[in-house]
């Protein structure tokens, strides 16, 4: 084959959707066999469209897709699968009660007569896993697996169907830091074994860490294609956003001597099955201070945020805002007391997707003047307020009447934050405020959080993005298995040390994040 090295190419591909959006404009992309190729860009840059076309979910309006030197037309994902392309979606759907092997062979089961040949299934899966260095036990039940392991099952599934080219859609977004490393190691081993990996991401560090080459998209066009080795972070950033983003310089606040505005004491949450996802957690936040909560997801962050938002009643302990008891009072009372919250799952809890921007923007204030009186809504007022919000927060939306579902993730989140700020909260609980948000919008959101702090509000920031936590927090507490295991002042700790506490390798007995609690001592081996 004369063009053997060019495994997959897009030649001058454009895609215009039925609604007129030009998602890709003359995109040229070439992926070489055996490489890891990253496609980078902000939300809405056209990355997903490229991936959809490669997987047969969308067809190019013009231009062609070339596979191993031959033009191909994928009308349907099964065409792409037949041609050796496999997609690993960001959120993998598996059957929890099935074993890994059962899940992998689901849809292409080896049979013996009419029966599923389970032995052969397990053998096949084990062989594939070994060949590509994916560490998974084929006989394990999927419900017992971590998200990282589930992701490997997703990859195995694509490989089992004969994929030679793997498409991964933001695979690291759902993983804790340690598992990201394992994933990258696996990807490198697969590339070494001759597979081709196409990776969509918007994290710069990943581009440089795992990919051989990368292609940057901005506004549907390719703005560059470079070898990852040697490309500097600021260079990539500039290609992504068209300008370089100055790192946010945040003035730290020293609140040790201040009076706490929020104080939580010995908070515990008890589930019906006897588990305690939150155990005796104590912390304070002063007015004008950001307390960051670090931790691998699922270690008590969600119940903590829910208790503070009034969605969950603690089994023990209480939360006070000033002098007022706010735990266990229900969301409306909690909000009336001055607590606002940005929920972790934006699409499920943060917005009503089918409703308009205006309807979403007033959801926490509609029941009192000036938006309503005696049960009558002032629709015009609500609309004007929403329109004003869009302008002030730089939200890109057709109008306040547009359904919020038509906005990009970043713009949606700006509406959520604008709504919560509009209630003039004394405490803002921000869970994963910039998750799935592009770099530019994330920067704006972070600036808003800091501005809110500087106006005197207390902020509890729960984030799995360690860089964000280290950048914004005045103090950081680490949650592990529902308990606070460490407490640091801003600027005295790095991601590596936090990681030790997040994974349970180290813990400070009886740690608390109250204003008078001692900080966790640093260990020499880490700082060395």
């Amino acid at each position: 084959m004369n063009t053997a090295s060019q495994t997959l190419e897009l030649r001058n591909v454009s895609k215009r959707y039925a609604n007129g959006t030009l998602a890709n404009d003359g995109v040229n992309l070439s992926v070489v066999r055996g490489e890891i190729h990253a496609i980078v860009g902000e939300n809405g840059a056209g990355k997903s469209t490229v991936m959809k076309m490669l997987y047969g979910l969308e067809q190019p309006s013009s231009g062609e897709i070339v596979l191993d030197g031959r033009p191909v037309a994928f009308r349907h994902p099964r065409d792409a699968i037949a041609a050796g392309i496999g997609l690993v979606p960001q959120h993998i759907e598996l059957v929890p009660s099935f074993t890994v092997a059962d899940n992998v062979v689901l849809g292409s089961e080896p049979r013996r007569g009419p029966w599923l040949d389970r032995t052969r299934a397990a053998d096949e899966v084990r062989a594939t896993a070994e060949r590509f260095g994916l560490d998974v036990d084929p006989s394990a039940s999927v419900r017992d697996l971590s998200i990282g392991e589930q992701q490997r099952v997703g990859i195995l599934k694509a490989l089992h169907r004969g994929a030679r080219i793997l498409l991964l859609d933001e695979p690291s977004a759902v993983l804790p830091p340690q598992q990201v490393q394992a994933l990258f190691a696996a990807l490198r081993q697969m590339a070494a074994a001759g597979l081709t990996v196409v990776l969509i991401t918007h994290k710069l560090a990943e581009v440089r860490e795992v990919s051989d080459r990368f292609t940057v998209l901005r506004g549907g066009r390719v703005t560059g294609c470079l070898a990852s080795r040697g490309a500097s972070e600021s260079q990539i950033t500039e290609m992504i956003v068209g300008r370089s983003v100055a790192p946010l310089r945040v003035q730290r606040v020293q609140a040790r001597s201040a009076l706490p505005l929020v104080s939580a004491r010995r908070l515990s949450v008890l589930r019906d099955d006897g588990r305690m996802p939150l155990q005796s957690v104590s912390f304070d936040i002063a007015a004008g201070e950001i307390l960051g909560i670090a931790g691998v997801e699922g270690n008590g962050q969600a119940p903590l945020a829910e208790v503070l938002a009034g969605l969950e009643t603690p089994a023990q302990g209480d939360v006070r805002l000033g002098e007022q008891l706010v735990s266990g009072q229900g969301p409306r009372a909690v909000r009336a007391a001055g607590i606002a919250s940005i929920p972790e799952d934006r699409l499920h809890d943060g917005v009503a997707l089918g409703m308009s921007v205006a309807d979403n923007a007033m959801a926490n204030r509609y029941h009192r003047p000036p938006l309503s009186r005696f049960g009558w809504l002032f629709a015009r007022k609500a609309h004007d307020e929403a329109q004003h919000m869009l302008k002030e927060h730089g939200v890109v939306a057709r109008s306040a009447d547009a359904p919020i579902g038509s906005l990009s993730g970043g713009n949606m989140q700006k509406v959520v934050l604008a709504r919560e700020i509009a209630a003039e909260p004394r405490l803002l609980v921000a869970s994963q405020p910039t998750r799935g948000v592009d770099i530019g919008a994330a920067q704006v959101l972070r600036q808003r959080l800091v501005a809110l702090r500087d106006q005197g509000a207390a902020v509890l920031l729960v984030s799995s993005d360690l860089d964000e936590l280290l950048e914004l927090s005045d103090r950081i507490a680490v949650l592990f298995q529902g308990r606070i295991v460490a407490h640091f002042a801003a600027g005295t700790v790095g991601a590596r040390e936090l990681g030790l506490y997040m994974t349970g390798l180290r813990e400070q007995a009886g740690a608390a994040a109250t204003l008078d609690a001692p900080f966790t001592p640093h260990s020499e081996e880490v700082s060395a």
Partner: protein
Amino acid sequence: MIQDTASSAAAPRPWQLPAAIAAALLVGFGITVLVSAEPWRAWLALLTGALPDIRFSDAEGWQVRRLVRFGSVIEEAITLTFLGLAIAIPFRARQFSLGADGQMFLSALAAAAVSLALGGMGYGAFAVLPAAFAAAVLTGFTWGLVPGWLKARYGANEIVTTLMLNLIAVQLYRLVITQWMNDPNAGFLTTPVLPAAALLPNLLPRTNVSAMLFLVPFVVLGAGLLLTRTTVGYEIRTVGQAPAFARQVGMPVKRTVVLSMALGGIFAAFAGVHVSNALLKRLPVDLTPGMAFEGLVVALLARNEPRAIPMAAFLYAYLRAGAQAMERTSDVSREVVLVIQAFIILFVVSERLLPATWSPARLLQWVRAPRAPKEAR
């Protein structure tokens, strides 16, 4: 203006309803061709049978005939509009309350009882009618509170409770009429005829089309304003669209659930008054239950959008009258028309199955929708 968003979520297309009806009529015609010797005539009867017949002859001048049939279309459309609204309001809060039947029966009973009592004391229409309406509305609202409360307090499935409450309401209605309101001179089990002061003024001679017709636009407008311009309506829409979100922002979700079912009862009450004080003018014990399920179909056709409900109700009533005409004047049975009605509903309701609206982008959205495993409870 705040966009009415349940409809935007369903992404209705303007051509969709006409297209669905056209497709259903086409399929229906296909069926007619199979079963009838004279399909064209039968088909014409279905489509125009409900219309009044306007003729001109030298001998008699302009003449309008078959007005009774057209009158019955309007009568039925009015009842169905109210029942459609009664179903649509709880549906907007995603409560599948089917209690409109029971609400209508008890409201009609309340209206008739008040009419008989006050009319018997010699009060005029300006006292009797408002009192009858008030009694009916109160009854419908209260009867709606029951399943709402059962749902909010005990998590009882509203489909089950409303169906059971319908049975209770109908038997209660029969008991009251047989035991306490029976007119011994009637020759069958029924209430006495309501006094003239309690009757809504008639608009079309030889029909029961009454002044209720003028009330319809206001009631529909009221339902629309309730949903778009009141805090309760906003809560109903939000709870229906995104219950988790509603809870998160502090909305009284349980109260909204209860209110949505009770508020639906108000509209069922209008249907009740229409039956007792305009159509029948007395309440027979064997009043047929099940009208509310036609209201359900109307609400579905209108996609729970108040403004569209009168149109959907008229279409439904029109087709039904046409069906009777078809049955009488041709060799096609009424069942065929029921089949065609079912087709229309099927075509409209299964809009998402139409190939034109299926898009890979949607599928991918679905694939990528964040369903990160939440911490198990």
